[in-house]
């Protein structure tokens, strides 16, 4: 196998290995006294939400970096990160609905955390739609960067909504002033490993998504150059019968 092919494949190898570890731990972790086996949904729901926060934060930082430097590399990172963030926010919402239905009895309620997460999902979906409104890379990057910066306001709002408002959604389980709500060490380890694994997945996905963007830009450049007239083609045809 070529070295280049091996390098290209490392993100996928990292993803598969990480997910296998996270899955094994979430299955051997003990059941909860209150929620029973349903607590296992937490090992997928919480890391997915964490990954969404990380992705939108990186979009925020990359958008600021683009606005300061005007380097399109930052725009690519912001775009890749936002797309991954939207996917994992959607997944967080769906997994939360499954968990809600099985524990609360309803998949959805207009609770502060749920509603703000849904709004964040649609705002970043709008970010992706905004990127498709123009083919001009500079205009696209500038417009998206502004929304990428403004959209980040929602990250602390979503995260602290369970502290600031009375909600049905449970408060933070591990990082809280009076210590972790979870007492079982293996459950804490499983949750922390899940968060680390999803962070690795985020890194690997960003690498692959940026690779795809580079290839798409390369293809667009080839298509543009195919449409361009060949050198010398644009010479004015002399009018016959007229003296120069």
């Amino acid at each position, binding site marked *: 196998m070529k070295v280049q092919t091996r390098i290209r494949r490392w993100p*996928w190898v990292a*993803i598969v290995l990480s*997910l296998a570890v996270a*899955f094994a731990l979430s299955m051997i972790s003990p059941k909860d006294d209150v929620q*029973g*086996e*349903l607590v*296992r*949904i937490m090992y*997928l*729901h919480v890391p*997915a939400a964490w990954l969404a926060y990380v992705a939108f934060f990186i979009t925020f930082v990359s958008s600021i970096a683009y606005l300061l430097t005007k380097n399109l590399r930052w725009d690519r990172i912001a775009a890749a990160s936002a797309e991954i963030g939207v*996917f994992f926010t959607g*997944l967080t919402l*769906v*997994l939360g609905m*499954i*968990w809600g*239905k*099985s524990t609360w009895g309803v998949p959805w309620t207009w609770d502060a955390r749920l509603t703000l997460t849904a709004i964040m999902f649609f705002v970043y979906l709008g970010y992706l739609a905004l990127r498709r409104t123009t083919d001009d890379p500079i205009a696209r990057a500038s417009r998206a960067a502004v929304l990428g910066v403004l959209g980040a306001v929602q990250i602390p709002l979503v995260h602290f909504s369970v502290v600031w408002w009375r909600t049905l959604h449970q408060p933070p389980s591990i990082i809280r002033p009076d210590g972790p709500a979870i007492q079982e060490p293996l459950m804490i380890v499983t949750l922390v490993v899940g968060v680390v694994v999803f962070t690795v997945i985020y890194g690997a*996905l960003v690498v*692959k*998504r940026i*690779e*795809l963007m580079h*290839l*798409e830009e*390369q*293809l667009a450049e*080839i*298509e543009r150059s*195919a449409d361009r007239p060949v050198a010398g083609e644009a010479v004015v045809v002399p009018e016959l019968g007229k003296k120069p």
Partner: protein
Amino acid sequence: MTEWGWVAFAYAVGYGSFALYAGSIVVRIRKTRQVIERAE
């Protein structure tokens, strides 16, 4: 549905949708690379 049923459903949705998303990136990379190679 039993508790394990809900857990299995959640994991199928989680891992399944992730596999679809990651798979779509793989397919798009492969197809775009093939088009570039043909064009060059």
